């Protein structure tokens, strides 16, 4: 069984105190080209449940300024798809939590979609998040390949996604559904408003088969708790990338403690 499914099952069955899953995004190759492995290890040691490794792209349409800038630096540092794969080559000797790669479709196309998936499988990557690979193209063209290499393709829903489409996405999802918290690009927010809370409630009432994890706009304990009240977990991206910009990578546990301790 895939580590993502395992993790989510584990969280849901540790029933005396329901633990919510904390996932952290960071951009590979930032702040320094070779920080990737040590960031992953420190995140796991600090108690993070899952990690999204960002493959940087020159034109990240769905990202706000913080993640954009980290991507520009990472590319300037020399990050490439091949480099990332070689950094991750032995990651499974040390790290047990689910690892996903988040990247845009063009670099994956250039690498070759099947080659890319094969390599991920070999390394022990559990899933992919590709924001600009549309649901129907994935469904018709790539689902089989992803499954052959044991990769969960994580699909997004937003407050604007219709109920019918959410049902469809639920029906072809495995792992989790990435619930984008509001109509926006990535970026940190200090708290969620009424419309977001209502959206979390609406989705919760739909009683979907696939667990939901909230992303975009989670930055601190308050937003983490709001976001996970009715869902299985939350993903922090920009706030962590910003932390890395302003602090040493030796202080990762401080960041994580502030969210979950």
């Amino acid at each position, binding site marked *: 069984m895939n580590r993502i499914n395992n993790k989510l099952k584990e969280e849901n069955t540790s029933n005396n105190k329901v633990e919510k899953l904390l996932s952290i995004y960071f951009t590979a190759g930032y702040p320094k080209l070779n920080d990737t492995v040590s960031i992953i290890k420190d995140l796991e040691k600090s108690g993070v449940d899952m990690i999204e490794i960002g493959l940087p*792209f020159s034109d990240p349409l769905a990202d706000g300024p913080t993640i954009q800038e980290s991507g520009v630096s990472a590319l300037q540092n020399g990050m490439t798809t091949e480099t990332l794969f070689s950094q991750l080559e032995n990651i499974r000797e040390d790290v047990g939590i689910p690892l996903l790669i988040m990247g845009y479709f063009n670099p994956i196309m*250039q690498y070759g979609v099947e080659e890319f998936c094969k390599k991920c499988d070999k390394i022990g990557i559990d899933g992919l998040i590709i924001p600009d690979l549309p649901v129907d*193209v994935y469904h018709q063209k790539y689902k089989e390949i992803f499954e052959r290499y044991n990769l969960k393709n994580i699909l997004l829903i937003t407050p604007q996604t219709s109920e019918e489409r959410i049902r469809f996405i639920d029906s072809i999802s495995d792992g989790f559904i990435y619930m984008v918290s509001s109509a926006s690009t990535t970026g940190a927010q200090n708290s969620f408003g009424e419309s977001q809370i209502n959206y979390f409630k609406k989705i919760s009432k739909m009683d979907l088969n696939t667990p939901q994890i909230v992303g975009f706009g989670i930055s601190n304990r308050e937003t983490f708790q709001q976001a996970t009240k009715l869902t299985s977990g939350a993903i922090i991206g920009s706030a962590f990338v910003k932390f890395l910009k302003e602090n040493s990578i030796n202080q990762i546990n401080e960041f994580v403690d502030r969210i979950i301790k």
Partner: protein
Amino acid sequence: MKNLFHADKNGYYGEFGGAFIPEMLYPNVEELRKKYIETMQEVSFQKEFQQLLKDYVGRPSPLYFAKRLSEKYQVKIYLKREDLNHTGAHKINNTIGQILLAKRLKKKRIIAETGAGQHGVATATVCALMGMKCVIFMGEIDIARQAPNVARMKMLGAEVIPAKSGSKTLKDATNEAIRDWINNPEDTFYIIGSVVGPHPYPDMVARFQSIISEEIKRQLVIKEGTENPDYIIACVGGGSNAAGAFFHYLEDKNVKLIAVEAAGKGINSGESAATSILGEEGVIHGSKTLLMQTDDGQITEPYSISAGLDYPGVGPQHAHLFTSGRAKFLNATDDEAMQAGLELCKLEGIIPAIESAHALAALDKMEFNKEDIVVVNLSGRGDKDLDTYIKYFKFD
């Protein structure tokens, strides 16, 4: 048979096209996809569109027989005078169409990207005309080098927001516009300036620009007794003026279609925008097409002396016309285009946009029979380029 070169219902042209968009954009793009053809075909829409093209844009644009240019190249050359349109280029055909659509979809706020500023000016113009709020994204570097167009947009009431990300030029302005659309999914309509972006944009923009070839057919019958020229030549940045000039001729293989890309300082100079030669298949701004990129799939920055042609991709229809061989792709360097622009001034008294001058530069690269009829789409006028002409030819 009829549909070899137009978009299929999912917006594919052969292998190219589609809508590679993040889920956040799906409702907006889907709404447009469902409604664009139906809305464009409404009688009231067509009436308003045609009326504005006539009275506001000044259409039909003349099909002018360029006698002295014809003598020089020993062939019959007609110029399709898009340069005489209001705001000075073909871009306004599209912005008029899209703003009428935006109104019918009850959108309140218009956003657009611009490189040289031509599409930005054409968008700001129709927003003023319709009393709609207008926000234009423009690369920080382009803002600095296209000051007169920035001033025009501001005079017309638009807010111009500098795109500071990435390479700070057209592709980044487009990224910023798309991000703005993600952040404003309900009240905002994105007017894209060329036949690029996710389906239905390439097809929609081509349909609005198809007025160009519709008129060429009518005008050529009167002048030459045939609807069909032997050649149509147009420059290609994203490809909208070419798409419009080719539209009604796509299925008629007797008409040879010539697309001219900007070679910049030379195809192999590292400073070029000749996407069909230098590009590989990939996804840019929501569309699968040919684009200039590194081996690792990072999109690279193109170069051309003409700001309207330095886009790293090309519309998906053009990618298909190129790979299928339906259109022939040529290219012109900065120098060739500048000389061709100056030649048109001297022979015909017309100062062309530097983009359009690339199309003219192709004349010298082709072999014609004396009786051949050639239509060159003169996509815009050169007023906006005076600074570049002055510097290049040292007129000052």
